């Protein structure tokens, strides 16, 4: 039995607890011993991406201290996993913590990477009798190289119909604080994405990151588009479409 420490990113904790629960549920079904430490907050990415590396570094150090004894860290976010695995290296970490990070990063996984690459999970999932479009979130795709893992898992969902989006590797335009700093630009990029989703006739769009989905859903709702957004973990766990 693998002992897994959940890292539930702050905005998932607050806005999308269902994604966290679905993650825990999937790991339990994959015979993992699931732990969650309530002392966790944020990985520090928002400050880092805004250029405030000092503030970010303190949160990174807190994260490393908190997870230092974790055997395996799993998170339902490609972006936060990439922050821990890659960008912590760009911060001015205390030498002792940097050393810890070098091994900790090897034990940190995005959920689909862990299920597919580490556990070789192949059981039937779902059911989810709907047409679903998969958006490949950029940080998972390009920083972690997550190409097929979520699609492979989605293909094991009973009754699902997975469709491809036009320009499927195009960014949705979220970009963290970019969405607020360059709001109109972010929305213009997102417009192309929601129109591609609409064209695909999908009832639901899914992704590795609730942050992208939050932006996509915000744009779509404002314009009365009817498709829904759901993290793929919820689809795999068999949650019903609301």
């Amino acid at each position, binding site marked *: 039995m693998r002992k897994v420490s*959940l890292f*539930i990113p*702050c905005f*998932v904790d*607050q*806005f*999308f*607890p269902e994604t*966290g*629960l679905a993650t*825990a*549920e999937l790991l339990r079904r994959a015979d993992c011993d699931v732990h*969650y430490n*309530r*002392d*966790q*907050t*944020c990985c*520090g990415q*928002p*400050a*880092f*991406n*805004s*250029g*405030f*590396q000092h*503030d970010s570094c*303190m*949160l990174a150090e*807190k994260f490393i201290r908190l997870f230092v004894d974790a055997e395996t860290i799993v998170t339902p976010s490609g972006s936060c996993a990439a922050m821990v695995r890659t960008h912590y290296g*760009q911060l001015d970490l205390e030498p002792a913590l940097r050393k810890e990070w070098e091994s900790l990063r090897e034990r940190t996984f995005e959920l689909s990477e862990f299920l597919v690459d580490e556990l070789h999970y192949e059981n039937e999932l779902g059911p989810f009798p709907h047409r679903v479009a998969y958006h490949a979130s*950029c*940080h998972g*795709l*390009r*920083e972690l190289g997550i190409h097929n893992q979520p699609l492979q898992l989605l293909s094991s969902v009973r009754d699902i119909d997975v469709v491809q989006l036009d*320009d499927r590797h*195009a*960014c949705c335009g*979220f*970009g*963290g*604080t*970019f*969405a*607020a*700093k*360059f*709001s*109109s*630009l972010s*929305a*213009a*990029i997102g417009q192309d994405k929601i129109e591609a989703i609409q064209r695909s006739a999908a009832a639901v769009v899914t992704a590795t990151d609730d942050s992208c989905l939050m*932006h996509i859903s*915000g*744009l779509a*709702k*404002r314009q009365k588009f009817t498709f829904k957004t759901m993290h793929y973990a919820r689809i795999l766990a068999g949650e019903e479409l609301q």
Partner: protein
Amino acid sequence: MSHPSHPRDLKKQVNRSLKARDGGPLPFKKNTIKATRTRDLRAAEWPDFEERRDRITERRQQAVDGLKELHESLRKQWSKHGITIHDAADAADARAIITSILHQRGISEILKSKSMLSEEIEINNHLVTEGIEPLETDLGEYIVQLRNEAPSHITMPGMHLFRQDVGQLFADKLGIPYTEDPSELTKIARKVLRQRFLHAPAGMIGVNFAVAETGHLVTVTNEGNGRMVNTLPPVVIALMGWERVTQSMADLGELWQILARSATGQRATSYLSLLQGPSQGPGGPGEVHLVIVDNGRKAIHEDPEAREVLRCIRCGACLNACPVYQQVGGHPYGGTYPGPIGSVLTPLLNGPKEAPHHPFASSLCGACEEVCPVKIPLPKMLLEGRKQRVDSRGSFDPEKPIWAMFRWMMTSRYGYEATTKLARLGQSLIPGHQVPLPGWSDHRDSPMLAPKPFRDLFDSWDKEKA
């Protein structure tokens, strides 16, 4: 020709460009997406594309690391072949050198083949004020010169135009009947320019690469104009960025191919012109002047965090792949270099205060790094640029307390839980529970805090499953 705006105004110009949309098709979106698709096809043709890219990147980095030594050997070659060498510390220096060469010889017109460096030193406007007429001979550059605009793209200067725009421009400026047939338009431009080539007293070329082994100055073009500019006029001025050095002819071969594939999706460009020095016999230039421009490059070379950007071979693939560039094109960036490479390079060359928004004008999607033939870590460099910009603002930064507060809130579970509880209360008091979020709510509905966070649900889930 003239820069449309200052790099400082990037944000304003982006918003202006988005506001000016009329729902019609956007030329830069159509052209960039097409260019990226062709680039991907050409990359896929090489089964060993990634290995080549790694090898080229490594060689390019070695060249950048060894620039000082390579320049020493180049100087020997250049002197041996009779090239007159001029070192320009900055743009003003380069402008002064060029005008003095032309003035001394009583030259009042100069034909140019494409050079982004000539845009960087803003030579055209300067020449005009000095009574010298510059004429662009690359078709795209000729078009933007006729429109009195700056190029909007590194390799495709008229990326922001449809052929109908060019048809109208030629009808207006050249007094010919309107046509939008690209081959007709090219023929017309060729006819106008050819007359000028035959009598041009001077030519200016951009140097894509200088080959250290032989001293050749290499110009990569598609239209043959570069070949005419560096052979027909008696005086040729070659303009070269200090970093544009490659080790050997073998390296040039590799670079040329990957440049063509990345830039235009061609297997090779139509022309590869090599100039070793003034002509020894009939034909060819009697004088070749090489102006080597620093303008901030040597400082970048000294900075270990920034040096990698000097690998850039100016293909423009990162512009084409960039979702931001696809939306607004090149002009809102101001300055010379748009797109991701511009967002990294402009603050490095001009200082973070002169391009304060550039590093932030990115969703950090990473599409740029994915297509870069020399693997410049552009997203990482944009993040470094953000840090530099924040540092340049000093302690009177209105954003500073926000992030200090954020850090405080996230440092302990208690601060985090108390703040989020308060936010939940706030959300419940707002009608419709739509909390207005600055920036966010202009275009999007706000996300709703869940009735209970995950942390309050985990324990009961855990007990239930046990």
